[in-house]
């Protein structure tokens, strides 16, 4: 699309999201996500067929004009993608405060590499030059306030999409279904943590990435867990990148049943503060989090709310296990899993 066309589109009162999708030639966000994942998974098909894990995205980078070897930069973010017009190549840059020798940092960088690779597909070619769709979509917005708002909105969409694409590419559906039988995992009771760790190691991702990937597969109905299965990873953090608040114990990633006995629940989300589960649960999780490398069983009351009315509390009961791990504060986590049911049932 030329800038002139983009200008015309802007003047037609088209919503910013619609303009963005049209520039990317996609009918919807979901369709765009599926299309990018398919492209990348297709490139990885040999590795997937031969079950070469972890999958090596650098081997397919050239197909998409991406320089396979990432550059190291400094910064407080994780990484970025830059297009070099002179070389007509994309360069993935990873922020590396120290040399990536420990496994958690390597896993994080692998994820960032996949995330930045996904960003590549949000550039469109215009007169032999690749331009960010966000820049094209917002180029014609007249009011500065509107432009800031639109760029923030589109950045948020693109970041979420790149995260989901990275999950789906590092852990493709076909292998996920093979390795992640939730009935089997939860049937292992307290040993689920070891199963989760083993699967994460195989894919070369963090446990959180693995849980988030399962959550995405559940939302897409690729995996359909039964009997109120739920799993969450808890960490001390300031919340999500777009809504940072006070440091507190929060849900990092999770999957929860969306319905219990036909009652739709407002389930926790990344950044969810644990005090919202009620004082008993909060205190329990705080103790577990601060207890070194420990584990245990639990039968705990959790307060959730109705999906239709957030003011109405739904008392639930979580029966299962927990495990704390991670020695440094930034990697300290509490993994909790079990079966959720309504308290009065």
């Amino acid at each position, binding site marked *: 699309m030329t800038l002139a066309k983009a200008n015309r589109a802007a003047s037609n009162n088209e919503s910013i999201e619609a303009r963005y999708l049209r520039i990317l030639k996609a009918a919807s966000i979901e369709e765009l996500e599926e299309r990018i994942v398919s492209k990348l998974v297709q490139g990885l098909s040999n590795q997937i067929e031969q079950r070469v894990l972890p999958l090596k995205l650098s081997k397919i980078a050239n197909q998409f004009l991406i320089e396979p070897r990432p550059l190291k930069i400094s910064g*407080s973010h994780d990484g*970025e*993608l830059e297009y070099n017009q002179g070389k007509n190549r994309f360069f993935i840059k990873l922020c590396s405060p120290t040399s990536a020798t420990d496994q958690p940092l390597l896993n994080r960088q692998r994820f960032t590499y996949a995330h930045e690779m996904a960003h590549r597909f949000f550039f469109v070619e215009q007169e032999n030059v690749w331009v960010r769709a966000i820049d094209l979509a917002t180029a014609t917005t007249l009011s500065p*306030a509107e432009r800031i708002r639109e760029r*923030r909105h589109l950045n948020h969409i693109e970041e979420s999409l790149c995260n989901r694409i990275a999950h789906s590419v590092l852990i493709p559906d076909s292998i996920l279904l093979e390795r992640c039988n939730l009935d089997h995992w939860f049937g292992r009771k307290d040993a689920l943590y070891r199963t989760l760790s083993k699967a994460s190691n195989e894919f070369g991702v963090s446990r959180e990435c693995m849980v988030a990937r399962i959550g995405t597969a559940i939302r897409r109905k690729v995996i359909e867990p039964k009997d109120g299965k739920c799993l969450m990873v808890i960490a001390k953090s300031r919340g999500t*990148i777009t809504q940072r*608040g*006070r440091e507190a114990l929060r849900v990092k990633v999770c999957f929860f049943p969306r319905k219990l006995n036909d009652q739709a629940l407002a389930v926790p989300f990344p950044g969810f503060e644990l005090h919202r589960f009620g004082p008993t649960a909060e205190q329990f999780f705080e103790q577990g989090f601060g207890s070194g490398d420990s584990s245990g069983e639990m039968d705990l009351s959790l307060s959730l709310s109705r999906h239709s009315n957030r003011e109405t509390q739904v008392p639930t009961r979580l029966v299962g296990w927990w495990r704390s791990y991670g020695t440094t504060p930034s990697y300290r986590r509490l993994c909790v899993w079990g079966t959720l049911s309504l308290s009065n049932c």
Partner: protein
Amino acid sequence: MKESLSGLFFWTTPYKQLYKDPAILVRVNEKLATIEQLKNDEGISDSLRSRIVAGVNDAETKNEALWKFYVFISDSLFYTGVLAKILQEHPCQDDPQRHAEHLQVAKSLIVRAVFCAWEYWNFKQKKINLNEGSTFAELSELLRLLIAKRVSDQLDVGYEQMLEDVSGVQISQYLHGENSPKCRDVRYKFDEAGNFDEALHQVVTEGDREKVEEAFNSLGVDKNLFEMEELVEVLTKLQNNSDQLIDLTETVAARNQTFNESVLRSFWNDLG
């Protein structure tokens, strides 16, 4: 004056006594000399010379107490600052004690800068006109000297101890974030809870409000994280740089970066 101070964090007036060699001339019999010269003069009696030496030592001891750089330290120096709350992964966000590292680097830079200025003054045989601004070439020489001094300081095993001896302030006693009993600034110490809309109306002109609010939202921080004084500070900085607010969202495709940090940092570099 404002322009010349931009970016400076340390300066002093060219006060005469800092670069003149004051001396007292006295007459002993037919001899006219400075006290410094008399105490080494073989032509006067030992008893008188010993009295002069004792008198000079006494005066030097008294003078030493007077000849000091008095540094007036603002409480804000020890406050981790509102910018630390906004920048992602800033070390002072959750631990105000980490601010000590910044102050240690600042102290080292100031000590080194004073030392280099003194050395430069001596290298130039004290013939620099301090009433005029330095040329680019002179500044360049001075900065090269500063860089070289940094290298030699790294080799100097006594450097860290010297830095410790330079200041009598126990930094850790004063380091604080907001809402801390260590805070000595009444504006912050007794601050009211933040109210974004009130602060926005108080600080930002009507025409800029929507833009400033959107820019604030793009920072990705919960408004409830700030007390009133902090909100006013952030909104003032955004208002003062309202022409550049669009640049805040001009980011490259990056993971975990919602706004352009270097643009935001530049808003705090105007000393305003």
